[in-house]
Structure formats: C-alpha cells, structure tokens
C-alpha cells in the first residue's frame, strides 16, 4: 500500500455521499466538525487579539487530570461528571498560571509551560496508575476521534428522535458562547484592545477576562472528544489568524471564521477519506494548507503585498 493513494475523484468526493446511510453518518461528522470550528473560532478570535493563543494549548492540556479524577470519583465516563471535572481543572490551570505570573517573578510563558505540563503529567499518571483497561486513553484525548461521533447515544424526547447527543452538547455550547459574544461584543472588543479605555468607561475588565477564560475552558472541553487536545489549538488560532490577512476589523474576522470553519471541515473530511488517516488531523492540516496562501497572498499584510509595497 503506497503512502499516498491515487487520487480518485469518485472515491473521495462522491462515494461518502452515495447512499442514505452513508449520508446520515457522514453528515453527523461534518456538522460536529463545523460546530467545533465555529465555537473555537469565536473564542479564538478574542484569544488571539489578547495575545493568549497558547492559553488554549495550556488549558486543553490542563484538563486531563480533571477528566481522570472525574472518572475515578464517579466511576463512569458520563458526560456530566467529565464536563464538570474538566472545567474545574481548566479553571484551576488558568488560575495557577495567573497566580504564578502575578505573585512571583516567574514570567508568563514559563509559568504557562510549567503549569500545563505538570497538570498533563498528573493526568497521565492518574490514568495509567489507576486503571489499565478503561477507554479513557491518553492518546485518544490527544487525537480525538471525530469519526466515532455518530456512535454516540441518541437523544429522544417523548418518542421523537432528536439526533446525536455529542452534536447536541456541542450545539448547546456553541449557542451559549455565540449568544454571549453577541450580547457582550462591545465589552469584549474594548477590553481586548484597550484595557485603560475599558476601565474608564466602566467595563468590568476582570469579569470579562474570567468569562472569556470560562468560555475557553468550555469550548476546549466540548471540542476535546471530537478533535483532541492539540488540534483544539489549531481551531483556536487558524481561523482568526487566516482572516486577519483579509480584514482589519474584528467583527469581519469573527464572521469570516464561519465560512472558514465550513471549508476546514469539508476539506479535512475528504482529505481524510483520501489518505485514510485521522479526520481531526486532516481538518487541522486543511487549516494549515489554507493558511499558507492567505499568509503569502493576503491583501492585508500578506508577504507578497508587503514585498510589492516595499
């Protein structure tokens, strides 16, 4: 079997949509992927503007001990316990980083590197020390498996089939974060760009920051099942950075991350079909592939436009 299979248009683009069963299966994967991209893109735009792109990385590593402890205490892989454990661990990770950064002379990058690796190591040790046979597998959390989303249990209400549980959870998280961004857009915008101005016009900067961190933890935990720890970072960073080569205004960057999310998911899905590899990985590779031309040719600060100007 060669490393790169031959490119067969029918096999890659049409075959996944050829029968109703395949369509309903693959559609769930696509919807999940798009929801993950949108949620992370929304939060990521603010994170990138605040120069905290790696905070997503840190928090996504830091939630592992929360997952492990939630499993050990509750004894099940139930979504509720996992969610609470992960959110608490994510916030604890964030708190530790900020405490170290503000109360000692340790710089922020070192504090971040120190805290998240420690949390992650604690998580791996807890998991491998406690059980060998559960499917809370560290490498599963790293890769994520969006291809297994259609296997999640179904939600039924009074006999009417409503759809997939994983998609519902992700959808609710997306709605929460989307509504929050819509309502508090002005506060988020001002406090991201000019803290002094934000304080002077009476925006509770600290509270906005904490809410954003909460949203970050929420988005990370919800996306984890689908795309895994590291690729969450890709979904945080790539949409807004790619958009920043086309637009200067944050609102357009935010809105542009929606079509980008659809592109990433569709491209990644078919790329994974072609290469027969991890779908989450392929989505992030697609994001990288789309970033490269944007970076080179983008009208706002792209390499070529800078070169022509100079």
């Amino acid at each position, binding site marked *: *079997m060669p*490393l790169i299979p031959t490119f067969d248009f029918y096999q890659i683009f049409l075959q996944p949509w050829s029968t109703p069963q395949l369509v309903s299966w693959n559609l769930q994967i696509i919807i999940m992927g798009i929801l993950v991209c949108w949620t992370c893109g929304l939060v990521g735009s603010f994170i*990138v503007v605040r*120069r*905290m*792109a*790696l905070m997503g*990385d840190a928090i996504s*590593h830091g939630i592992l001990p929360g997952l492990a402890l939630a499993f050990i205490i509750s004894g099940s892989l139930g979504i509720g316990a996992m969610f609470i454990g992960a959110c608490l661990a994510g916030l604890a990770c964030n708190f530790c980083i900020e405490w170290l950064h503000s109360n*000692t*002379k*340790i*710089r922020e*990058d*070192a*504090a*971040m*590197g*120190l805290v998240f*690796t*420690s949390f*992650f*190591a*604690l998580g*791996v*040790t807890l998991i*491998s*020390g406690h059980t*060998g046979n559960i499917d809370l597998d*560290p*490498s599963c959390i*790293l890769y994520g498996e969006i291809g297994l989303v259609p296997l999640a249990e179904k939600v039924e209400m009074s006999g009417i089939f409503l759809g997939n549980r994983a998609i519902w959870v992700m959808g609710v998280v997306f709605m929460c974060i989307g509504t929050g961004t819509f309502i508090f857009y002005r506060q988020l915008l001002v406090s991201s760009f000019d803290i002094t101005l934000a304080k002077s016009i009476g925006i509770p900067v600290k509270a906005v920051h904490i809410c954003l961190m909460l949203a970050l933890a929420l988005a990370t935990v919800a996306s984890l099942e689908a795309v895994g720890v*590291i*690729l969450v*970072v*890709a979904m*945080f*960073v*790539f949409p807004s*950075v790619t958009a*920043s*080569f086309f637009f200067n205004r944050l609102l357009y960057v935010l809105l542009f991350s929606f079509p980008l999310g659809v592109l990433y998911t569709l491209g990644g899905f078919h790329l*994974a079909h072609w*290469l*027969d*590899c*991890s779908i*989450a*990985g*392929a*989505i*992030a*590779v697609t*994001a*990288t592939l789309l*970033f490269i031309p944007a*970076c080179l040719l983008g009208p706002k*600060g*792209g*390499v070529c436009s800078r070169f022509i100007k100079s």
Partner: protein
Amino acid sequence: MPVILRIWPCLVFLFTPLCSMVPTLDAKQVEMLEDDQVWGRVTRFFLLQDTSVQIVALGSALIGITCGLIGSYVVTRRLSLFGDTLSHAVLPGIAVGFIWAESKDNIALLIGATAAGFLGVSCLTFLQKYTHIRQDSALGIVLSGFYAVGICLLTRIQKMEFGSQSGLDSFLFGQASALSIEDLWGIGCTLLMVGLFILFAYKKLLITGFDHSFSRSIGIPADFLQYVLWLLLAFCVISSLQIIGVILASALLIIPAVTASLLVKRMHTYLLVSAALGAAAGLAGSFLSFLGQGMPTGPLIVLISTGIFISVLCLRPTNGLLTQWYFSRKNTLRIQRENTLKAVYQILESHNFQNQTIRTQELMSKRGVDIVHCEMEIQQLVRTGLVTQAPTVPSPSLPGQSTLSLTPKGWEYACKIVRNHRLWELYLTNEAKYAPDHVHEDAEKIEHVLGEDTIRQLERILSNPRKDPHGKLIPSLTDMEMGNIQNI
C-alpha cells in the same frame, strides 16, 4: 577566562559519578527476582544490578542534566513555549523518518526529527519577520500545524503493513523502559555538545542573553549563537523523546530552570542548580516508576520536578510562601505581645505605680477582649518570660482571678513600647504640627517598628522630653528602673 575555570570543576564533579556507572552497564544481568516486595525493589534499584535499571536511571539523570543546562537559557531568554512548540514540531519528522527507514531506526528518526525541528524554527522566524502575526499566535500555528501533519502521518503509518508493530505511540508519552544503549549514547553526545558549547561560549551567551544589541555592537555573533542554541535545543528535545515523549519534553526544559531561578541569581550557579535539579528529578522519577511497576517514567519525572518546584516556592529562605507566612505570623504575635505589655503598663500607671501587680480582669477590660483571648495573651507573655502569673488567694479556681506582675525584662520592654508611642505622639504634635487628638492611631502603628537609633534621634530632636502631649510621662532610659517612676 576565570568564569569557565570556576565552572568546569563543578561540571566534572557532576559528570564523574555518572560516567563511572557506564562500565557496569555490561555486567551480566541479574536474574529477575520473583519478589513483589517494595523493599526488594528499592534495594535492587540502588544496587543498580539490573541492566535496564542502570540504563533508565542513567538516561533519566543525563537527560535531566542536559535539559537543565539548556533550559536555563530557554527560561532566561523567554523561549519556554518555543521549546514546547519545537517538541511538537518534530513529530512529522519522526513519522517521515519512520516511513523512510520502514522501521524504528534511530538514525533515520533523528535525521527526520532534526529536519522537522529546523523547518519549524524557520517557519516561526519567517512568520515573525515577514507578517504581522504576533509571537504567541505564530507559536500556536507552527505547533498545531506541524502536530496535525504528524498525527495524520502517524495514523496513516498505523494502517500500512509495516506500521502495525511500530510502537510510534511511545514517542507521544515516552517509553523509558525501551531505552537502549544507543539512545544512551545519543543523550551522552547531546550532553557533551551542550556542555562544550556552554563552556566555550559562556560569557558570550551571558551578554547576548541580557543585552542583544550591546553584544552585537561589540562584535559577538549574537544571531549565530542563537541559532546554535536552537539547534542544541532541538537535539535536546529529540534525545529526550524516548524517555519523556513529545508532549512533556518541554517540561524538563522549563521546570528545573524555573525552580533554580527562584533560588539563585548568578548565571553560573543557576546553570549548576538547574542541572542538579534536573538530574535529581530524573533519578527520582526513574526510581518511582521502577517502584510502582507499569507507571510511566516521563510523567513521573515531570511530577517530581513540579513537586520540587512547589516545595521550593513554599520554603525558599526569604520569600517562600510558608516562610513568609511564618514571619508574618511571628510579627503578628510580637505586636500582640507588645500591645498586652503596653496595657499592663497603662494599668500600673493608672494606679500611680502604687501596686506591683494587676488583676487579670483589669487587663481584660483594658484590652477589650474576652477571657479566653486574654488568657492566651497572658500565656504568651508568661512563655516569653515577660510576666509572672500567680493565682489570687481567695478563689483560685475562678477564671480571671489571677494576678500578674511584670518581670524586670517585661518592665523594660513595656517601658520601651510606651516610650516609642509617646515620643512619636510628641514628635507629631511638636514637629509635624498635628492636633494632639489626631496622633494616637499613627503612634499605635509605628510603636512596633521604631528602632533604637530612631528613638535616640527623636529624643535629640525633641530635647529629651519628659511629658507627652497628653501630659503623661515618657519613660526614658534612666526611668526604666521601676523605683524612679514610683518616685515621680
């Protein structure tokens, strides 16, 4: 170069015991004992009889030293997350090396990883130099982009015919038990390169690290040194992958160095402490993972480093958390003691120093606290030998019925506090022109911190006063004999 001369004996001191372990590696492997006794394992670890134990312990210690040394520069130059990015970026290189050699060939993996590391660094430099992307986003892009390619390749390899038994997963979390002699040589070579580089470029690295433009102006090839440092960092990350894995490789770089930065200030001691901490964490981690069989070595090494960091953060001499708590507690107790003594003095004064003793109840009402607190404060004074407590004759069993008398030491201390208080009140009214009824609160605070020299200065400025603004006596040095005050 005096600095190098000062460092190298310490480096030799660090290396020698470890190097002396190498010949014993060839010793015949002791038969695996069928004991599950923890103690048996402990002795087996420390006797270093098993070849695998020797290799893992030596490897972890060496990688600890290497990462500690390089990590010092990583942390001081704010490259902490750079190391993290680099360790993720080598993943596609490892995968490509694997595909190329069609097996887990060390040389191929090393070449692939180095190439990928280089590519990652170049991408990072390119993004920062030629676009408006800020450092954190550029790191995030390189990290997740490279890692995504790596994940795709790895999942692809696992579906190819030679990939099923690849064991490439071990690169994500590390697998110290599979460490081979060749890996050990690789780690040793990296350590040698790092050691030599630091030895020969110590002073230049110091200057470039703290003042980049200055170092360029005096002709130091700052950029070249930076690239060599990056290259060594990549080597360091790659050689630590087998033990600690891609995800946690940056922890070994950051944590010992950050811990050392809490303890020392000078660069050469910083390097040594950081290397020693790294080695200690490596040894302890391999020991623990041997003790609890099946525990992963890499995460344990990281956890031990974190443990050391937390204990240093809490216990370091001047500004550790626990140390600070201890000192502030001590200070609070001293202030409380001094306030009680002052109250005793004031009660004695209100009786015109006619009595030698006061009753507990008087102290209670003067201090405005309940009996339990009052008793605690008295016990404090009794324990430090400032006051003696005697039960009153009529009803010794009732609480609050004991009498107190100051010891000579206690009397002197009480006079000193009252003197501080009243002198300061007088100073505020006479020199700073405060109204006499506004000076008490300020004096309440400052009486506890005025030193002997300041007091003498104040006395000189106020020309040895006898009365404070409220007309009360300021007990002077000569008045500190009890008789003197009674006579007045």
